[in-house]
């Protein structure tokens, strides 16, 4: 029972990471119909920036917030400079551009910071919590709890932003109906750039939260990105809430399967994500909460 609870909590913690990146993917997909394959690598790059600032002696939360600022600006600039020129190109071309971006982020990070793994600090105490649950005591890592807290806080902020602010409303309108939005005076191009900025911010949060357990290296987010794909596919690429829930589900399932299905263990955990993607695509391609999009051709 203790093991089960532990695994569920740590599954929720990693699930929050997947949820953040999945949400970033879904946001960009909804606004521009593009799957940003570089989302994870952009997050890894932001995490390195945070590492550099910490190394230069900045306090953790200062560096954390500054990194979010850098990530936001970086996301906006990438949209304006790299994505905008190919905006009207076929989807495949844009996908290849984001793949190129992935490779560039990865190798530039390797060039600047080398491929040697670096320890990354956690802002939370290292002493684990002891939680009494019914029969026995369960030990839960403080970083896991903090990570879940941060993720939920970010998700709440973004929900409030989109739901209750005029700018959030304009961004939703621009994603849904660009032509009609322009007629209402909304600068659709800037809204898309803002969307990329916000997505980069979620990614950066995910990167900084996952780095303490995985240690920092240029391939930090490769696995996370795959899990995030699984999460977004499971929840539905057209449903932000679904993608978030999908993230938590993938995190928990991944952990429980790794623990209880003996032949899978830690080595094959990764396959679980890929299997989930395939099963969802076969059984319900729009995901659990997604809507089927009918396109006129």
């Amino acid at each position, binding site marked *: 029972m203790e093991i089960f609870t532990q695994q569920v909590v740590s599954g929720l913690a990693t699930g929050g990471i997947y949820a953040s990146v999945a949400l970033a993917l879904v946001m960009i997909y909804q606004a521009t119909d593009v799957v940003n394959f570089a989302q994870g690598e952009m997050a890894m790059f932001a995490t390195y920036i945070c590492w550099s600032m910490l190394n230069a002696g900045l306090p953790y939360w200062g560096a954390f917030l500054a990194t979010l600022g850098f990530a936001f600006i970086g996301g906006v600039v990438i949209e304006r400079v790299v994505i905008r020129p190919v905006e009207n190109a076929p989807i495949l071309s844009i996908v290849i551009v984001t793949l190129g971006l992935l490779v560039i982020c990865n190798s530039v990070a390797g060039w600047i910071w080398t491929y040697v793994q670096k320890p990354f600090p956690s802002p939370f105490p290292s002493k684990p919590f002891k939680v009494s649950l019914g029969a026995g005591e369960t030990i839960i890592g403080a970083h896991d709890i903090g990570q879940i807290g941060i993720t939920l806080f970010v998700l709440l902020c973004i929900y409030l932003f989109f739901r209750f602010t*005029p700018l959030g*409303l*304009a961004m*939703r*309108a621009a994603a*849904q*109906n660009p*032509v*009609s*939005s*322009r*007629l*209402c*005076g*909304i*600068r*659709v191009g800037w809204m898309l750039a803002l969307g990329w900025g916000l997505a980069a911010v979620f990614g950066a949060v995910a990167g900084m939260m996952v780095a303490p357990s995985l240690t920092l290296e240029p391939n930090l987010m490769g696995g996370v990105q795959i899990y995030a794909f699984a999460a977004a596919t499971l929840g539905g690429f057209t449903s932000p809430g679904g993608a978030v829930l999908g993230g938590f589900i993938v995190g928990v399932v991944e952990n429980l399967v790794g623990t209880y299905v003996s032949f899978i263990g830690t080595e094959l955990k990764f396959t679980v994500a890929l299997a989930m993607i395939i099963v969802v695509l076969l059984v319900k391609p729009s995901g659990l909460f997604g809507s089927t999009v009918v396109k006129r051709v």
Partner: protein
Amino acid sequence: MSALLEVHGLEAFYGRTKALHGVSFSMAAGGITTILGANGAGKTTTLRAISRMVRTAGTIRFEGQPLEARVTEDIVQFGIAHAPEGRGTFVHLTVEENLKVGAWGRRERGGLEADFERVFGYFPVLRERRRQMAGTLSGGEQQMLCVARALMLRPRLLLLDEPSLGLAPLVVREIFRILRTVNQAGVTILLVEQNAALALDLADHVFLLETGRVVLEGPSDVLRRDDAIRRAYLGY
């Protein structure tokens, strides 16, 4: 008195295809002008040209200010609201959110609640549907929402593209009755319609387009009474 909107030698292009061949007209503030014509005559394109949604040549002046160098997003700043073909509903936003989006482009931010009350006064059914997703509305309700969204700008000029399209006659009559009220409240209207009889009843001035050119213009009651014109151009 100078014209509110002056269009001169307007040409419009979709790729290499020319859709307007030198359309010129002007309209005074305060009235309802309608552009009539068959499918493909260039009615919608004329509105799209004013809203800068299509490549053009020629001049478009609103209160003397040129619009040609502007982008679509800027047009609302002149107080021009465009209720587009196909209604442009934000289907995954609520009715109230649709209206808020309509108010995005105007200068004064305040008074939103008063504007809701005003458009709900015109279209009471929207008040009942206020929290509902716009995609769940009927066609007629979505057309009302489209006009209401445009009115949230507090426009000087309202461009209306076929508000009767696909709607039951009773609903159309209701919408046109409201349009007259809207006009009396001081909004100049440029209406594009296929339903000539209906448009002639509402409008005080008419332009008739044929394959991208103005072939006839005049006060609507004169055109309505002229049997030859009616048979030749208006088909009823």
